[in-house]
């Protein structure tokens, strides 16, 4: 089945998310849509799937014009979607999730799941999915949940399958399996629209590539194009994918985590008995699939986790169990996972956000007084140093783009005496330009003799920056390996498989 989008335009207030986008997906092809975060890919797909209505433009399926006002219309014409954030009810079973919206009933309106169970078992067997129809979805690993979504689309006879950033939540092994499944679906006649910003995956499976930048189609390419060419089109200027990094010269231990256990308020252990050391002048990356305790470990270093046991030494001094400000002033810089929620106060100005940690210290303040002129002049300097693009330091920080917001966080955290930088997913959702800036800054911190602890779920980032890699799985560090480890070995570790060393 072929699908064509013609001149689709969608605006949210002043933001033009899709600006006259046209593209055609041929029968039985894998069509990749490549673009940075915020380029408008998800908006476009939500329009195709009927979750959003375009301001103008039209959609046709097999050369016939169709109107898609709701997801049910999309399903009716054979368009299925696997969402980036799964559209599954966590407390329902697999079968219940799959029949939802298309329930078969017996007398009295009671649900009849038997047919769905059989069908799930059949598809599961055909694609080697290993999905139990009666498992409760929230107990399943993310990769399996995604397969549930694929099964659902197939059961409703989707001829065109939209995969919206499907690999963002997967381990490298699961990603490889998904790519194999995509090829098998294609060989059975399903067209696939594959949304991503990961160049390697595009090259691995796509037949054709459409590149979107700032809501517009900026070009098409074939998978034979080099990564540099694709990246350049995606970003709109030449991009250097490799970083220049000198050999590390590790010095004394700046961060030493000893037997750290973090529990939640119900007593469940989220971080289990972790030992980790970061020395001066090295970057240690904590790799792992999202949700394996990285968030809690990072927060624990800042004393943000209330239930901890063990010891966290900053330059030899234990700070665990003391206040957050003790952690900050002992020399920890912290780039939190969610800059909007935990890194910044959105309605405050840029200059105010820059001194959230030191507002009560000289030269910014003294006793009850604050000195706005000093705050402002210091903010001007930071803006120069960190290349923050803004009209004025008095603008609210919410007016900035994601990359510039992250630069404000970095500017604040790195402008006080720092020994250890703890950065949690520092480039998540950023454009390539900002990612380059953050990466260069991390390496600069390392070369200035600080210890950097980087939490990342992106393998590319881990390999670009790390001197050593600690792998977290189910709250434990299951291994610490040199950065020379192969991608596939690291992937296995992230999935919890520890090889016996020869």
């Amino acid at each position, binding site marked *: 089945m072929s699908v064509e989008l013609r001149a689709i335009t969608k605006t949210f207030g002043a933001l033009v998310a899709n600006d006259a986008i046209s593209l055609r997906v041929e029968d039985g092809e894998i069509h990749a849509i490549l673009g940075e975060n915020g380029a408008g890919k998800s908006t476009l797909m939500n329009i195709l799937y009927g979750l959003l209505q375009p301001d103008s433009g039209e959609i046709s399926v097999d050369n016939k014009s169709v109107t898609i006002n709701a997801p049910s219309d999309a399903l009716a014409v054979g368009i299925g979607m696997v969402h980036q954030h799964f*559209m599954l009810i966590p407390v*329902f079973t697999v079968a219940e999730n799959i029949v939802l919206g298309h329930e078969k009933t017996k007398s009295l309106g009671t649900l009849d799941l038997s047919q769905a169970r059989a069908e799930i078992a059949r598809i599961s067997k055909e694609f080697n999915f290993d999905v139990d129809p009666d498992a409760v979805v929230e107990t399943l690993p993310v990769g399996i949940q995604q397969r549930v979504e694929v099964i659902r689309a197939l059961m409703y006879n989707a001829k065109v399958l939209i995969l919206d950033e499907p690999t963002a939540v997967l381990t490298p092994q699961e990603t490889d399996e998904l790519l194999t499944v995509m090829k098998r679906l294609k060989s059975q006649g399903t067209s696939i629209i594959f949304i991503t910003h990961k160049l390697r995956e595009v090259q691995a499976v796509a037949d054709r590539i459409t590149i979107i930048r700032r809501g517009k189609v900026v070009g098409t390419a074939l998978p034979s194009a080099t990564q540099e060419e694709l990246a350049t089109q995606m970003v709109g200027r030449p991009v250097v994918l490799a970083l220049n990094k000198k050999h590390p010269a590790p010095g004394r231990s700046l961060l030493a985590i000893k037997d750290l256990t973090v529990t939640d308020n119900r007593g469940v252990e989220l971080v289990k008995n972790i030992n980790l050391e970061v020395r001066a002048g090295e970057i240690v990356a904590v790799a792992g699939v999202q949700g394996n305790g990285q968030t809690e470990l990072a927060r624990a270093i800042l004393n943000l986790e209330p239930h901890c046991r063990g010891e966290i030494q900053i330059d030899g001094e234990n700070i665990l169990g003391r206040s957050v400000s003790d952690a900050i002033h002992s020399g920890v810089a912290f780039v939190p996972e969610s800059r909007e929620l935990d890194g910044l106060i959105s309605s405050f100005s840029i200059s105010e956000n820059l001194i959230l940690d030191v507002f009560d210290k000289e030269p910014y303040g003294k006793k009850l007084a604050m000195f706005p002129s000093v705050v402002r002049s210091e903010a001007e300097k930071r803006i120069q140093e960190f290349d923050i693009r803004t009209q004025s330091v008095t603008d609210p920080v919410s007016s900035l783009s994601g990359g510039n917001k992250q630069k404000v966080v970095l500017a604040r955290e790195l402008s006080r005496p720092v020994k250890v930088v703890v950065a949690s997913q520092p480039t998540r959702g950023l454009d390539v330009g900002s990612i380059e800036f953050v990466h260069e800054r991390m390496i600069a911190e390392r070369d200035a003799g600080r210890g950097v602890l980087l939490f990342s779920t992106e393998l590319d980032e881990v390999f670009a920056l790390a001197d050593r890699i600690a792998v977290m799985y189910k709250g434990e560090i299951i291994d610490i390996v040199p950065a020379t480890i192969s991608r596939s070995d690291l992937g296995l570790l992230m999935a919890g498989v520890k090889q016996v060393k020869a």
Partner: protein
Amino acid sequence: MNLTPIQLRRRRGVFSMAILSLASLIGFGFLQKNTAPVTFRFVLEKEWVAIHEWTLDSRSGSYGFSAAALLISLWAFFQFRRDKKVHVQSALGGFSLLMAFMCWAASGKMIPFTGLLQGALLLSVPLIFGSMAGVLCERSGVINIAIEGQLLASAFAAGVVASLTKNTTWGLLVAPLAGALISLILATFAIKFSIDQVILGFVINVLVIGMTNFLYKKLLIPYQNTWNSGPILKPIEIPLLSKIPVLGPIFFSQTIIVYLMYAIVLAIHFSLFKTKWGLRTRAIGEHPTAADSVGISVNSLRFKNVIIAGLVAGIGGAYFTVGAVGAFGKEMTAGKGFIALAALIFGRWSPLGAVMAALLFGFADNLQGILSITGTPIPSEFMLMAPYIATIIAVTGFVGRVRAPAADGIPYSRESSH
């Protein structure tokens, strides 16, 4: 030994039951100064009689039941060790403790046992209807604080209409409509205009109290004979079933409202977990975006369910007037709507769970009433607190983690979810 949260909670429940049993043995047994016979009466009216009454010595009664509770705790402990559920043990243990308490509290007196349970059921009726209305709303993702207002408005409507027409049937028919009208306000503002549902529900309650108070003063008091002297529904005895000793008069010699309640509770529980409607309702309460993405019209189903909830609450409201006393009284629901809300949460958003909770509240309420008439060593103010203390003990000890529907109280709109 590493315990899961469920096991930890179970252990806490078992231990607190054992400690309470021990406290009961000492408090009601050893420390009971003057022992006297206590009599439980099992006969109410025309049922077949198995035993008429049972008299026992109050101190030995307290000893006996406390010891039984202690043994049951031990049993529960072994169940816990074998990693099994302790529901049956909790229920039996709770009952034994209660009997130990009654032997102590009613020493030298008579407890109308069947009457106690029958009254408990009647006091639970509005709570059960109210909590069913809550289940319907909150499972669909709309918080319903306005149960109190729904009960009060429909109590008023039923009373006035029955009085004007001199016919209980008309009262019973109008009451659900009044409840649905309140639901219409709730649904319109909560779903269509995305108003904060807690504040909205509270405002609706204040509105209904104000309106009924006004009309009560201007209409029902001056023209009492026409406007506020409605007839009362007669109990209907179910042949044979109503003759069963103890259970018959409690469950099968009631008004039509109570029989409707049985049907509605079973229908809601069954529908919620076994039907297409139920699956969809739970889906929109948990993850409306997902429901929308498979073609379920989230807001119209929410709207529909909130209106049905109003109809259900309305029948509960009718119980206050045509089901019980006939005349409407100022603010006569007296916070029952909020207790229904508590029963809903205590029952973990499950219809049968909410019914159990409502029955417990009703029982504690009625026990308090009976003991304050027969006279007890405890001040009546403390007795009034009993239902709530029972709630706290039950929630902390036995119920465990309470998880509301994930999207409860969050308005849904497509554009804002992206």
